[in-house]
C-alpha cells in the first residue's frame, strides 16, 4: 500500500468502532491490499453496519417521527414565544405572529413548555438513535432550513427561531449518554407538561399540532417504567425487547 493512500484508508476507518478499526486495519496491512481495495473494503463494512442499524425501528422513529416534525413545531413555538415576549416587554406587535391575549403567565407557561418539549424531544432522539444520530441531525437541519425559507420573521430576528436549540442539544447529549432518571421524575415532567398544555389550551393559546410535542415526555415515562420493570434504573427503548443494536464489543482477553 502506498504511503500516500494509507492516511486516506486510516481516515475512512474512523467510521468504524475503535476495536474493529484496529482489527480491520491490521488485516488490510497483512493482506497487502491495494489502497483502492482497502478503501472499498472499509466503505463496504461501514455500509453494512449502517444498513444493519436501519433494520431496527428506532432510527426511523427518532429521525422521521421525532426529529423532523418536532424541529418544525419547536421552531414555530420559539418564534411565537419571542413574539409574545416582544409584545409584553417592548410593546412591539408583530402582525405576522399574533400572540393574542397571552399575558405574562402564559408566556412563562409557554417558555417552560418550550424548554421541556425541546429537552424531552432531544433525549428521545439521542437515546433511540445513538449510532444513527447523524441522520436525525440531518433531518432536523432540513426542517430548520425549510422554516428559515418559509417563515416570515419581520420584525423579529431569525435567531429567535432557534430558542429550542440549546435544551434540545442538552437532551440529545443526555440521551446519547443514557442519563439515568427515575420513573417518578419522568412522570413529574410528563404530568407537568400535560397540565401546562391543558392550561394553555383552555386559554386558546395552544396550536392543536403542539400536542404532538407532549409525546416525547410520555415516551420517557414509558422508558423509565420499562427500566423499573426490568430492575434497571437507566432508560431504554420502551417498545422493543432488545436494546439498541450495536456491533458486538470485543475486548482484550485476560
Amino acid at each position, binding site marked *: 500500500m502506498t504511503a500516500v493512500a494509507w492516511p486516506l484508508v486510516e481516515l475512512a476507518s474512523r467510521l468504524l468502532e475503535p476495536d474493529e478499526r*484496529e*482489527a480491520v486495519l491490521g*488485516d488490510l496491512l*497483512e*493482506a497487502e491490499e491495494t489502497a483502492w481495495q482497502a478503501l472499498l473494503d472499509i466503505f463496504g*463494512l461501514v455500509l453494512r453496519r449502517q444498513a444493519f442499524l436501519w433494520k431496527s425501528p428506532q432510527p426511523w422513529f427518532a429521525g422521521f417521527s421525532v426529529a423532523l416534525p418536532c424541529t418544525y413545531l419547536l421552531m414555530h413555538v420559539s418564534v411565537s414565544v419571542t413574539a409574545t415576549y416582544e409584545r409584553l416587554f417592548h410593546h412591539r406587535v408583530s402582525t405576522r405572529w399574533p400572540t393574542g391575549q397571552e399575558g405574562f403567565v402564559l408566556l412563562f407557561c409557554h417558555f417552560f413548555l418550550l424548554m421541556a418539549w425541546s429537552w424531552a424531544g432531544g433525549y428521545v432522539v439521542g437515546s433511540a438513535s445513538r449510532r444513527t444520530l447523524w441522520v436525525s441531525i440531518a433531518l432536523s437541519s432540513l426542517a430548520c432550513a425549510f422554516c428559515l425559507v418559509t417563515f416570515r420573521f419581520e420584525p423579529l430576528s431569525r435567531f429567535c427561531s432557534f430558542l429550542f436549540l440549546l435544551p434540545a442539544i442538552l437532551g440529545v447529549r443526555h440521551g446519547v449518554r443514557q442519563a439515568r432518571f427515575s420513573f417518578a421524575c419522568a412522570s413529574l415532567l410528563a404530568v407537568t407538561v400535560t397540565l401546562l398544555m391543558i392550561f394553555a389550551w383552555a386559554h386558546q393559546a395552544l396550536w392543536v399540532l403542539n400536542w404532538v410535542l407532549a409525546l416525547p415526555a410520555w415516551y420517557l415515562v414509558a422508558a423509565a417504567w420499562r427500566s423499573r420493570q426490568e430492575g434497571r434504573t437507566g432508560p431504554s427503548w420502551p417498545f422493543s425487547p432488545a436494546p439498541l443494536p450495536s*456491533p*458486538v464489543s470485543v475486548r482484550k*482477553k485476560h
Partner: protein
Amino acid sequence: MLGEFEYVLITAAAALGDNAYGAAIREEIEATTRRRCSMGALYTTIDRLETKGLLKTWMGDSTPQRGGRAKRMVRVTSKGVHAAKEFYDAVMRVSRGVSWAENQTGSSS
C-alpha cells in the same frame, strides 16, 4: 439452520484452530471457495455468529507484519460446532443420489 456463508466461516475458523482471526479466516475462505470474501461480509457475519453464541471473539496480540495492530481472534463454540454439523448433515442428506455428488460419496454405479 446456518446460512451457506456462515457455515463456510465456521468451518474455516475451526480448521484454523488457535490461529483463527480475521485475515487468516478470510484467506482460508478465499482459497477454498475461490471467491473473493469482502471485509464487510466477514466481520458482519462474525458479529452475527457471535450474537447467536456460535463463535467467541476477543482482541489478540499484534504483530509487526500488521503494523502493530491487534488481531480479532475467533473460536468456534460447542454450539457452533453443533450447528455446523447439523448443516453438514443436512447437505449430505439432501445430496444423496444427485449426479454431482456421486463421485464424492463413492455411490456411483
